[in-house]
């Protein structure tokens, strides 16, 4: 096979990976343009040589979970206004990434989410009340990470990338074919831990998929202050890790690219890096004021690339979705939100003395003393209340 001139490849994105086998970098570089399978109206683009189209059943499931996910996200935002959540980072606009990625892995695979992945976790089937436990003000992550194969949502940026490398290596070490899927933001790729995590995974050929949701902002910091690289996917080659870019608002492409990446990792070929180009439609969290750093026109432009309507249009066009089905899914989403709202309205009972239970496997003598002190304080406070 001879090398096609770049300009041509650019116009009609094709995999560059098999083009020039003599250059060691060549198998690792992403295609120059992000992989796309649906255009902004939901029409199917020409078939991509590397990425077979996901099954209609999978796409319908993807659509269903995106609709429910978006409704969940709106509900969670509403809960902050009612004071039921301390804070909530919305992922509206990123539904294709949040749901597409978790659909690409098995239940036995591990997911390493950040604070922004609440939707991904509910799409994974974790109880939304559990997912929101920390954000409502409790001291633990809510769900059982071991049972759900899902690490606690990670706030210190990029630190989870290294855990994922370790977990994936440890699983393979013990003969299990688990893949670890790490979510990370564009901003967090600047942290040293990103570098170390990807590098460890590469050196130890750990089955990890690093999934960068490049939503163009890190709170207020724009991508241009994060990197001067052509795109974040170009970081892969520096670790010997194959990488791809994908249109993060194209649900079909996200699912297809992630599926291939997961298969690559599961087959023992080591890690894979995927960068999804997407956009955070809401502020960073409910506490943030995005109008300070980006204008409405920019946000509006991204409304036209909405991943939910895009997939809906495609599925309708393909005859896989009709009004009745759309209505049924919408109703399911409403019911989901209503149930969440209801359960979140019950104030959780949190025992202050539970603070001492899991600092160590057994409380130290010092913690036992402090527990006793707090117990006495609480008793005294109850007495005072009783007196009053």
């Amino acid at each position, binding site marked *: 096979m001879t090398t096609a001139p770049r300009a041509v490849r650019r116009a009609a994105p094709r995999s560059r990976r098999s083009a020039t086998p003599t250059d060691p970098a060549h198998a690792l570089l992403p295609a120059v343009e992000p992989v796309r399978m649906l255009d902004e109206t939901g029409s199917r683009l020409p078939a991509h040589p590397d990425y077979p189209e996901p099954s209609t059943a999978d796409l319908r499931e993807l659509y269903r979970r995106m609709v429910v996910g978006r409704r969940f996200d709106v509900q969670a935002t509403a809960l902050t206004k009612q004071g039921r959540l301390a804070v909530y980072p919305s992922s509206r606009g990123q539904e294709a990434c949040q749901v597409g990625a978790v659909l690409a892995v098995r239940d036995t695979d591990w997911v390493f989410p950040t604070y922004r992945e609440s939707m991904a976790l509910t799409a994974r089937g974790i109880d939304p009340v559990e997912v929101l436990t920390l954000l409502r*003000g409790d001291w633990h992550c809510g769900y059982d990470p071991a049972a759900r194969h899902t690490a606690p949502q990670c706030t210190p940026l990029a630190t989870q990338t290294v855990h994922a490398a370790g977990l994936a290596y440890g699983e393979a070490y013990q003969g299990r074919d688990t893949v670890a899927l790490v979510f990370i933001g564009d*901003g967090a790729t600047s*942290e*040293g831990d990103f570098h170390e995590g990807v590098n460890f995974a590469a050196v130890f050929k750990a089955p990890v998929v690093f999934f960068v949701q490049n939503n163009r902002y*890190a709170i207020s910091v724009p991508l241009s202050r994060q990197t001067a690289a052509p795109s974040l996917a170009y970081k892969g080659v520096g670790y010997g890790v194959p990488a791809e870019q994908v249109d993060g608002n194209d649900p079909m492409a996200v699912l297809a690219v992630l599926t291939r990446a997961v298969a690559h990792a599961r087959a023992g070929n080591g890690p894979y890096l995927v960068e999804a180009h997407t956009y955070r439609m809401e502020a960073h969290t409910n506490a*943030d004021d995005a109008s300070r750093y980006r204008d409405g026109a920019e946000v509006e432009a991204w409304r036209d690339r909405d991943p939910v309507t895009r997939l809906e249009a495609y599925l309708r066009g393909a005859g896989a979705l009709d009004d009745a089905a759309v209505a049924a899914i919408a109703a399911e989403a409403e019911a989901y939100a209503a149930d969440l709202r209801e359960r979140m309205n019950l104030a959780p009972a949190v025992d202050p003395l539970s603070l001492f239970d899991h*600092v160590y496997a057994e409380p*130290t003598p010092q913690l036992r*003393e402090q527990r006793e002190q707090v117990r006495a304080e609480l008793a005294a*406070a109850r007495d005072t209340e009783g007196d009053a």
Partner: protein
Amino acid sequence: MADTPAVKTTMAKALNAALADALAADDRVVVFGEDVGQLGGVFRITDGLLARFGDRRCFDTPLAEAGIVGFAVGLAMSGLRPVVEMQFDAFAYPAFEQIASHVAKLRNRTRGRLSVPMVIRVPYAGGIGGVEHHCDSSEAYYAHTPGLKVVTPATVSDAYSLLRAAIDDDDPVVFLEPKKLYFSSAEAVLPARTEPIGRAVVRRAGRDATLIAYGPAVPVALEAAEAAREEGWDLGVVDCRSIVPFDDATVTAEVRRTGRAVVVTEAQGFAGVGAEIAARVQERCFHALHAPVLRVSGLDIPYPPPMLEHTHLPGVDRVLDTVARLQWDDQPDPRWLPRMEGAA
């Protein structure tokens, strides 16, 4: 300046004014970090600086705390005076190596030929309903690292004055801003210059015992002293302001006068700055003491979440309970009778 009228302002605004005035006064000052530019910082401490001074003087960086601090080291080597913001306490940990091995040591390693006159601003401690990793009291890590100065204001005027002093200082200063006091307000005359770094202040004179506190614990100590009057105790309050260097003279003079002391800190107690203060006070005031120097602190647990932070934080009750144990009747503290040790 003497006739500038006092105005009601917040600690956040005072810090913002200090940065603006420092930028205006000295071309070498540059302010940077995560979200400090257009957004003005998540606590708005850098609000308006980009607009007023341009994006050369106040700018956002990639998200990388070691990078931010290390970049500041390089800027300082080139002759500038960087002021960097760590977004929250626990998010300064990635910079720990840069701080401990470079910021703290560069002057010493070069026999004073290079210095790093930089300020690392760290919004710290809790009381704001923050979720995990957002409320650490991290002062001990810095205070235990020779070569760093460590200061923390408890009042609006001190916030302004200490930040200006920190920026003017030829040594690196870790400037710890108690988040829960950001929006506390007071009448203040700005630009205020209280006292140089290294001076504690007696916030309240007292006869019976001395409460020693800094940063977020100062208002708690003052409130406790007020409440103690009902119990018949006249408590003094010393605000350390500067942890490194520590003002032994002011603290020990007070304790020698009262003969009793309680150190109040918000951080987890074990091996914290409260331990240092208790240790040095009893070393220096032993013969004046009628009771051990006691400590009130946060619990030795990860900082707890909004729903339970009041359980963790030393409040007025815990302070008064502790004052009550200052052996007023010369009885040993029953808590420390041998059989109690380690039991619960």
